[in-house]
Structures are given as C-alpha cells and as structure tokens.
C-alpha cells in the first residue's frame, strides 16, 4: 500500500434531512480537511449514518450544500461524485452472485470502462493489499465477515476514491475479526486518504482520528481533536454518552 493517493476535502453546509415528519438532520455543518480522518460518534438514531450517506448522496439532503475539494457537488451527477467517494457498509454488501475478484472487476469495467485485463490486474493488486489475494476465485459467502469487509474495502479502493466513508464497518463483525479491519482503516488514514468514519469503536476514534464529531438528535453537538473530546468533554450530553460507552 505505497501508492500515492489523491485525496480531497469534504464540506457539508447546513444539511437538513427529514423522513416524513421526523427531522433526522437539523442543520449540520462538517468540514474534513484533505487527507484527514474524522470519526463521527453518538448514540443510535442520532443521524450519523444519514449524515455519512449525504456525502455520496445515497441520501439526498432536503437542503444544504456539499463541497468536494472546495467545489459544490450537490447538483452534480451523483454517479460521477460516487466515483470520487468510496463507501464501506456495515453489512459489507458484496455481490453474492459474483466471485470475490469479480466483485472488484465488475465496477471497474462497468463504471471505469477498463478492459478485462486491466480490471483484473487492479483487482488482484487491491486484493493482495488487503491480504486476500488467495481468495479471488471464491464466493463472498465462503469468506469470514472480516474477510468480506476487507474485500469490500478493496473494492471501494480499486475505484481510486479521493474520500472514503465507513458506515459502522466493524459493527457486524465477530470481536476477534474487528482488529484486522480497523488496522486496515488506520493504514488508509496514514496513507493520507480522507476518511469519514461512523463508528462505535472509541479506541479507534481516539488513536486514529484527527477530529471527532459527536452527534445527538440530528446535530453535531461537539467537535474537536480526540484528546479534547474524550478527556475534556464540555457538553453534558457527550459526558453522559462517554460515561455509558467507555
């Protein structure tokens, strides 16, 4: 994993999202500098995942702006945006009808229009990056959860994204498999890729994140470097949250 990465800054401005009468995001501002890692923490239902999904517009905000590398992409072609912003999901979402290798080859060919040979070469390289080169011919279902998630990360990385989003990427994993995935994510952070990570892994947030944002009830309540947030939380809500999870 020595390739130089091209990463971009991300900025969300006054994002509002409602599901029916339920206001999920009530005006969220978030800026992530290029090459930095921001972890979003908070209780379930606080809007973390919805906010993350606004960054690649899987969730279209009702109002607000989204900037990638300083340029507004809220009205741009979402497919073009998503080529620049990779995403990893809680439940991996590997394509069950395709081999591990094909999971990576498929988007490279259909989106990036690469030839079969080019796509295979990239796919194999990304698989060996995550230590799973030998799993190429297998079905995703033949792999452990941790291995599946590493394939999902390889699949997203193969698209050469400038930003990576992680939506509770380790929440569905058995405890002994969590570490491998977290190490991989930390490796990406140290390579200078911009990461936005929704997580319940407070240890990861503390040691890897440049910034931590605490969300509650559709707002970012407190934000800052991990040491400040974890050691000197200001808001009572964050203090209460930390006392429950730490």
């Amino acid at each position, binding site marked *: 994993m020595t390739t130089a990465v091209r990463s971009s800054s991300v900025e969300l401005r006054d994002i509002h999202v409602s599901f029916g009468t339920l206001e999920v995001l009530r005006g969220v501002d978030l800026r992530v500098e290029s090459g930095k890692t921001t972890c979003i923490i908070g209780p379930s239902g606080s809007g973390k995942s919805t906010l993350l999904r606004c960054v690649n517009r899987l969730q279209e905000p009702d109002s607000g702006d989204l900037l990638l590398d300083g340029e507004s992409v809220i009205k741009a072609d979402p497919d073009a945006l998503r080529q620049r912003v990779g995403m990893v999901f809680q439940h991996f979402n590997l394509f069950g009808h395709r081999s591990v*290798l094909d999971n990576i080859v498929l988007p490279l*060919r259909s989106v990036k*229009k690469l030839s079969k040979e080019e796509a295979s070469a990239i796919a194999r390289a990304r698989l060996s990056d995550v230590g799973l080169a030998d799993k190429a011919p*297998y079905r995703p279902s033949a792999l452990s959860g941790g291995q599946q998630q590493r394939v999902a990360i390889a*699949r997203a990385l193969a698209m050469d994204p400038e930003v990576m989003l992680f939506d509770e990427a380790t929440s569905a994993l058995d405890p002994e498999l969590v570490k491998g995935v977290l190490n991989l994510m930390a490796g990406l952070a140290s390579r200078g890729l911009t990461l936005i990570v929704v997580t319940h892994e407070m240890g990861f947030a503390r040691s890897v994140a440049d910034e931590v944002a605490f969300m509650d009830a559709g707002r970012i309540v407190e934000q800052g470097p991990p040491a400040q947030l974890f050691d000197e939380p200001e808001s009572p809500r964050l203090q209460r949250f930390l006392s429950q999870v730490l």
Partner: protein
Amino acid sequence: MDDFVNTFLDWDYISQVLPDLLKTGLLNTLILSVSSALIGTVLGMVLAVMGLSTKWWLRWPARVYTDIFRGLPAILTILLIGQGLGTLARDVVGTNPYPMGILALSLIAAAYIGEIFRSGIQSVDKGQLEASRALGMSYTKSMLLVIIPQGVRRVLPALVNQFIALVKDSSLVYVLGLLSGQRELFRIGQDLAANTGNLSPLVAAGVFFLVITVPLTHLVNYIDKKLRTGRKVRADEPGDGDELDLVASGKVGS
C-alpha cells in the same frame, strides 16, 4: 380390466395416432410453448422492472396489465386475441391463427412471469443496490448487473413451474381452429378420439405431455436443491458468467 384397456389403452388407436403426435403434435406443442416462454420471459422482465419503478406512469400500466391477464381465464384471452386481433389486423398478420395463438399465450405468460420476477427482484437485499450505486454504477447498470441476476436466480424454480403451466396451456390454442398441420398434441389426440369414440389417442397425447413436463418438474427440484445447499462455485475466470444467469451479465460497459 379389459374394459379399462379398451377404453384407455387400445393399441390400434394409439398406433394410429402415434405418427401424427410425433411428427406434428410434439413439434407444434414445443413451438407454441417455447416461443411463448421466450416472449413471455422478455415481456415479463419488462413488466417486473416497470412494476418496481418509482414512476407511477410506468408502475400503473404494468399493474393493470398484470391484473387483467392474470385475472382472465386463459381460454377467454386466447379466443379474444386469436379471433379478435386476427379479424382486426388481417392485413398485417394474415388469417393464420397460429401466430395469434403464440401471441395470446405469450401475453398471458408475461403477466405471471412478470410477478415472479418482481418478487425475486424485491427479495434482493437493499444493500446490494446501495453498494452498486455507491460504486458509481447507474440505476440501470445496477439492476442489470447486480440486482436482476440475483433476483432471477432465486425465482428459477417458480419460473420453471410457469413454463410447465405454459406447456399445458398451449393446448388451449385448439379453440382457434388450427389447420391440420398446425395441430398440437392435445388437438391431435382429441380429433381421433372424437372420430373413433375411444379415449386411447388422448391418453397417448397425455403421455407426450408428461414426457415434456415431468423432466421439467425434476429440473425444478434440482435447481431448488442447488439453491438451497449453495453451490461451492469457483469462478476461476474473471467476468466468467454463471451457468444459471438468465440475464446477460458482465457484457455491459465493456
């Protein structure tokens, strides 16, 4: 016992009907059912995708179509289309009722197959579409390459069941009054049975139907078992399709 044999298994009548069943009936039954299965599958996929659309003007026509063609007796639809369209569009289609029979069977099959596909596609986890969209694939590409292949696979047993029903329903085109060389299995058996007052020719026709349908039934069970146990597949070649894929995959965007 003799009565039974004389009524159902009279070899004289059976040997009399056998050449026609083999040369004409089997061929026509296969042409009718295979062509309407193909057309019905294509139309059914279109209906399924329309039915899943977020746009009401795509969803509604698919809904109405399905309700009508599933709700009417097949024999009524075949008569209305076969005779009605045959009369209305004589200049275009000629007076030959045979293609009209195929059309009617296809339209009926499409309604059922459309519902089968729709339920299959709907059963695919939403995360699959999210993941493919998140990778930058368009809705159409995601459906073609990721969602539909997985959805279709799950409903293959139901699909083959529908093909079995289609083979049997193809006998209903007899109501259109086909020419002697266009008769399918049932009509050939029925003609000789009516002429002779003996049911043995119909029994012979029935055996031919079973020869087609019973292997299909076993194919259903076979596929069902495979899907249940999960194949330990090694896809050694990248882009290598699956033998079970009905939808061309990996062919888009190359």
